[in-house]
């Protein structure tokens, strides 16, 4: 798994590539938590991610909690079928703010 960080329209966008599993979720978590510090809106682009395990889900939940505490926003974009599936299986689709595209995430 790799991450790349960009700024756009006052938001921070993290582009993620590769699987998020027990081995890679610690670095995924760290990148998101650090990026969240410096932005009012963190957009996580998962278009190049085909697998997220329960530890990756836990990382996303943790970042969401941090965002809420700091009155910031976390938006997930580009969810592939397998990623959407695991959010459904864990009943978290309604807890996260999910958008199709980067534009939609930045508009709202």
């Amino acid at each position, binding site marked *: 798994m790799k991450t790349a960080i960009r700024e756009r329209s006052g938001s921070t966008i993290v582009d993620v590539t590769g*699987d998020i*599993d*027990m*081995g890679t979720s610690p670095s995924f978590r760290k990148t998101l938590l650090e990026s969240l510090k410096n932005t009012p809106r963190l957009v996580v682009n998962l278009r190049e991610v085909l*697998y997220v*395990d*329960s*530890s990756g*889900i*836990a990382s996303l*939940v*943790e970042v*969401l*909690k941090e965002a809420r505490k700091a009155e910031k926003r976390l938006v997930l974009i580009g969810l592939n079928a*397998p990623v959407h*599936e*695991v959010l459904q*299986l*864990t*009943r978290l689709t309604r*807890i996260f703010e999910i958008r199709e595209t980067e534009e939609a995430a930045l508009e709202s």
Partner: protein
Amino acid sequence: MSYDKDGAAEILPPQAMSGPLKFQITMASDPRLLAVVRSTISELAAVWGLGDEGCRGVTRAVDEALSNIIRHAYKNRSDGEIELSCRTDADCLEFTFVDRGEPADRSRICAQPLDDTSLCGRGTHLIRQIMDQVYYERVGEVNRLRLKKYLPGAKRKA
């Protein structure tokens, strides 16, 4: 513990299969190998005739089970050994995991309610949502976990 679930609709009949196929992996308890096993199981499930969603399901169940063994049974040590045997019958797929780590605390498995925002406890739920039977036992010094998935239309035996 043993668990039974209704509905295995996402799994297609094993058109490609004609008899049982032996396939076993012996591996270090190293998280870097999880991607390797996912790729193996996903292809094996395709050979067994599962559709895309079925392949993703059993791959996820196997991955979460291995992660739990690495994290809980071997306490994140990467030099433990895990044996994963894959077996198929006319009516089901079965994955058996054997490790020599700490025994599992059964009361903690699926102990977290889903649907909340806790930071852990989802792995065992995912496994049970996907698989039809989850059976754990301690046999002497080893842990044995068996995950079973019935194929659609197959008679379910306990």
